[in-house]
Structure formats: structure tokens, C-alpha cells
């Protein structure tokens, strides 16, 4: 069985090599949740790891998953782009979890179209009609004759919930023909490559590849979100189980420090 020995030797060597950098760090901080809050969470994590040497891991699996993880006590901080729903709060109480809300930043939900689309502005009612499936062609809202490709987020998304609440009213149904994408980045990609598409993404994700349209005459920007002129905006949250303490508290309070505020602004979000 000589080859077997070689294999074992190799595996042991690998294991030793991997063990070498092993360090028994203190308890790490685990974040789970929103893809919209993702850039902030990731930047905070990198900053925190560098400054305090505490390990922070960030998952981006959607606000709904963040809430579930917090309820199941599998994360320290749930990042969410919407407030917790009454059902989630009830489920949390049942499991002995008491979610505490911390606002990290403000975010506008930008309605984005392909840069080649001549439409510059839409009213809330027009957007609602597009998503309800009542308006199906760009020429009905002042654009060229082209069928609108409507893109929405998955049901797990906090951005989707906030969009529905802010634009369509809670009970309204999004048209069944709307296409679903699973993250802000995916919507941006789809819209930037589809001339007749419309979608919505967090303000931090808007770049040159897509064009934000003005909603009720106001373009989304840090200033217009902060002043409240741009109406499709919502706060972004970190949720903890009970009042945070120790490193978790330090992490949450990062959003109140000058460096934290700078990071939020540099990422294109709005400092509260």
C-alpha cells in the first residue's frame, strides 16, 4: 500500500501548511442579509478587521434571509433594506429573540433604464402602471415605440418590498410578466444590456451603464434623498438581537464615526 502512504503524506503536509496561519481569534462577527446593504457591510467589515483585528464575515443573501438568520440566532447582525415585518417580529419573540433596529444610512431606490432610452422622467403613477402591467409600451409614457421589459427583484428582497410600499401601495400586485433578478447587480446588468428595460436598484449601484429617471420630476441623488425631495427612499438597517454589546456594538457604531460616514458617502449611499 505504498501509494496510499504517499497520499496520506501529501494530505498531512497540506494540513500542516494550512494550519500554520491558524490563529485562535476572538469570537468573530457574522453578518447576513441584504444585497443592497452589502457594499456598506463589506466595507465596514474590511475596515473593522484592519482596525481591531476582529474577524467579520458578510453574506449577501437578501433581507428576508437576514431576518430569518437573526431569528434562528445564526447571525449577530442582520443587514436589511426594509424594516422587519410584524410576522417576523412575532416569530422572533416566539424564539426569544428581541430584534433591535439601528439605522446605518439612507438609500434612494433609483428607477433605472438603458442610457439610450429617451425617457427622462416618470411619475409615481406611471411607474406603478408599468409594474402593474397596465402600461406596456414606452410610447405610452413619452418614449419610443418599444415594449417595456419590466424587471423586479425576488420576494426575498427588501428593496422589492420597499419599492412596492413606496410606489405601488401595499396591496398592489406586480404584473406576472415581470422578470425577476436576484440582486441589485443583476438588475443593473440586465438593464444596461436591454434597451427597453426598466428596473430599480439602490442608489449605491447606479453607475454610467444605466440611466436613473426622475421620479415626479426629481432625480435621485444623495442631496435629494437626504432632503426628502426624492420620494422613493428608505433607511437601511442593521438589526441585532437585544442591545448590542462589545465588538458588535463597536461595529454598529461605526456608522456614527467620521470614517464610517465617509465610507457610506464614498459608496454612494446617503449619510443619515
Amino acid at each position: 500500500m505504498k501509494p496510499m502512504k504517499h497520499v496520506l503524506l501529501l494530505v498531512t503536509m497540506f494540513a500542516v501548511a494550512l494550519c500554520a496561519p491558524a490563529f485562535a481569534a476572538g469570537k468573530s462577527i457574522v453578518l447576513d442579509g441584504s444585497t443592497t446593504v452589502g457594499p456598506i457591510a463589506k466595507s465596514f467589515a474590511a475596515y473593522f478587521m484592519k482596525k481591531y483585528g476582529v474577524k467579520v464575515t458578510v453574506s449577501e443573501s437578501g433581507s428576508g434571509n437576514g431576518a430569518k438568520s437573526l431569528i434562528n440566532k445564526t447571525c449577530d447582525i442582520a443587514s436589511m433594506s426594509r424594516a422587519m415585518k410584524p410576522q417576523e417580529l412575532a416569530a422572533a419573540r416566539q424564539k426569544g429573540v428581541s430584534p433591535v433596529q439601528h439605522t446605518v444610512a439612507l438609500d434612494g431606490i433609483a428607477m433605472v433604464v438603458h442610457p439610450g432610452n429617451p425617457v427622462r422622467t416618470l411619475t409615481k403613477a406611471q411607474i406603478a402602471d408599468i409594474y402593474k402591467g397596465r402600461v406596456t409600451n414606452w410610447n405610452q409614457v413619452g418614449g419610443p415605440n418599444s415594449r417595456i421589459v419590466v424587471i423586479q427583484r425576488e420576494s426575498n428582497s427588501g428593496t422589492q418590498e420597499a419599492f412596492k410600499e413606496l410606489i405601488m401601495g401595499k396591496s398592489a400586485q406586480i404584473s406576472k410578466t415581470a422578470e425577476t433578478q436576484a440582486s441589485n447587480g443583476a438588475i443593473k446588468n440586465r438593464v444596461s444590456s436591454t434597451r427597453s428595460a426598466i428596473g430599480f436598484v439602490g442608489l449605491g449601484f447606479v453607475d454610467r451603464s444605466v440611466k436613473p429617471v426622475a421620479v415626479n420630476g426629481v432625480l435621485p441623488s444623495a442631496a435629494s434623498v437626504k432632503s426628502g425631495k426624492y420620494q422613493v427612499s428608505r433607511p437601511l438597517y442593521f438589526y441585532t438581537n437585544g442591545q448590542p454589546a462589545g465588538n458588535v456594538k463597536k461595529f454598529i457604531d461605526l456608522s456614527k464615526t467620521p470614517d464610517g460616514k465617509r465610507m457610506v458617502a464614498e459608496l454612494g449611499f446617503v449619510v443619515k
Partner: protein
Amino acid sequence: MNVGTRKILDRSFTAVGIGSIVVMGIALLIVIVPIVFNGMGSVFFTGTIEHRNMLYNEFGKGNSDVLARENAAAGAYRREIYSMLSKFEAELESMEPEKQQELRAQYGPVRTALQALFGPLPGDPEAVLTRYKYGQTRWDKAQEKLHEFLYEAKWDYSDPNAMAKEYFVSRAAGFEGTSLVKLFPYVEKNLDRLLRPEFTVYWGFLTDSSVDSHIFGGIWPEIQGTFFLAVGAMLFAFPLGVIAAVYFTEYAQDGFFTSMLRSANSTLAGVPSIVFGLFGLAFFINTLKVSESKSVLAGSLTLAIMILPTIIRAAEEAILSVPKTYKEASLSLGSTKWNTIMTVILPAALPGILTGGVISLGRAAGETAPIIFTAAVSVGSAIGLADVFSSPTPALSWNIYNLASEHEAAAEIRHVQYGMVLALVGIVLLLNLSAILLRARISKKLKG
């Protein structure tokens, strides 16, 4: 059927066979060539001085004397830009308000484009995010940024009945009559002196941690995480799988129960991997609570369940292919059944079992869905072996997906994504290659 028809049928069958092999070869080429070509670009590329500065500041790599000389040389050319900027800003102050406002609106994007090329300009507040501390680190990207600096992308909305077309306008034209006009040809002409491109071999891509969520640095945490997850899955699945296969082939009586077990095993092999992922979350994390959060342990267990059917199948086939005479000879010499299995059957079946195992290892390394909810995170440092029971880890498969779709700067860091893909494909190929070699060696030994 006459001979002629038979010959035609025979030939056409051969032709179809060769044809399908050719199609497969072409498909493989189409898939592999861009992966290899673009993936290599993350290690071998033309790096700028910004890359060397980044390496020195973030990882302490590089020679400080050489770097200081280089920075001084590039700085001499950059100071020219900065003085043009301050001259223009002074000029702005003395203009009439309307003209000033118009030019300021155009000047903002010029500054942004310069920042993208050369990093923070004098007077900029110090950036907190590492991505804004440096200019372009790669020469190919720098050339794209140069285009953005020289030309403004505009859309022609003149025809309201059609989607607009993109066209480019020279930014310099907008500053006609001011001192800034000179800046554009200056940067275009001196870009290589400003950025000092140099062929770079950045092995650190494989051994460094990422900086500022993969915008700089390497992919070591991902490689290590993939390795941990795959090996962990094997540690659970391989012994279990072989034992189950021995049971199926040597002990189980043919009957209702056994056939149920067999079909259950086959069904398990066909279950979509996302189902295993959700099962892992519900069972290992939420019910058994093997760890407080997602962890390598939970991910490995989930992957183990996923690859178990394949391993059982492969081991079963391998054991069945051992000639009956081996077993009979052993038993006839008075050996017990257990002893026969351990000393005769399993060694003879080992090449087949190992092949099945290593191929499953490759599959475990490449799966995304089972680890989304059980082990993978988009940002995290490399973990030590001591942390596998409690810590989640970044892993290649998940981070490739994350960079492709969720990352806020996905378009800027395609090379990292390709690098990860190449690393993953490389790992899986290496595993499969080692399976082939191992099999060949052991077979030779057995025959020998």
C-alpha cells in the same frame, strides 16, 4: 439487408461518431480558451505604478527604494497636471458667474476621470475606502479610463421614436479658450510616463487576501475555503460511502428492503443541489445546531450528503468488478468474510473507489447551491484549521457568482472573476488528473 446498405450505415455511424467528438472538442475549446486566457490575465498583466504602490502599502511587498525613485519620476509628470488644474481653478474664479457655472459642471467629471487614473488629487480629502486611495492598477483598464477622460459619452436623443445611439464628444472641446485645453493632449501623450506600465507577474493573486472586497489583492481565502469544504466533505462521505457499498455488495440480501435502499440512493443522486443546500440549513444549522452560524462544518456535511450517492455507486461498481475468483480463493483458504473484504476485495477495488472519490471531490469543490446557506460568505478572511467548526468561509464557487452578479463594481473587476474561475477549473482538473495517475499507479502495482 444487402451489403451496400450495411456499409453505408456503418460509415454514416462512424461519421456521426467522429462528428460528435469534433463538436465536443470545439465546445471545450470555446469554453476553456477564454477562461484560461482571461484567467491568466489576473496573474500576468501590465501593472502600473499604482499597482506597485498598492502592493507596497497593503502587503509590504516591493523594494521601497526603487518604488520611491519611480514615484519621484512619475510625480514629476503628475505635478504638471496638478499645476494645470490649480491654474485652471484660479482662472475659473475670475470668470463671469454663468460661464463659471457651465465650466464647473464639465470640470467635475474631468476631476473624477483623473482620480480614476491617478488616485486622489491634491486637495482631495483622504479616502477611507482602499479603492479610492489608488489610481488604475492595470494598464488595460487605464487605457479605458483614458478614453473616458478624453471623451464624454453622450446619447443622441434627437429621434423621439427610437432608442438613442451612443456617441463620444471630446472633453477638450468644452474647455476651448481656457488653460485646461492643454491638459488633455498632455495626459494622452504622457500616460505611460504618468503610470509607468510594466509587465507584472502577480503570484500574490493566489496567495494574498483580498483588499476592499476583491477590488485589489488576491483570492487565497477563497481557494483555502474551497479546499476545506471539499476535503471536509470527503472526510465524511468517503468512509460512509465505502462502508455502504460494502454492505450493498457483500452483506445485503436481495429483497424489498435492499431494492428500496438502492432506489433511494439513486433518487438522492438526482436531487438538485439547492435542495441539499436548504436541507443543510434546516437540518444541520437550525435543528442540530452543529455551529452557531454558517460554518465550514455545516457546509462540508451538506456537500457530503450530496456526493454520498455518487461515492456509493462508484464503490459498488468497483467492488462488483473484482473477479469472483479472488473472493472464492480467499474464502477457500479459510479466511473469514470480513478478512476477505479487508485484505482481498477492497485493495483490488481501490483504484475504482478512489477514482469515484476524487471525481466527487471535484464536484464538491465546484458546487455553489449547497453552500450558499450553509457555509459561504462574500467577505471574510482566511480561516485557520481551528475555526472550521465555527466560521463560515469564502469559497471560489460562491464568490464567482457573487462577483458576476451582486458586486457593486462587477464590471471593474472582471479579471478577478476570471482568475477565480481559472483557479476553480484548475483545482478540479488537478484533482481529476491526480485520480487518473493514482489509478494507473495502483493498477500497475496490483498487476505487478
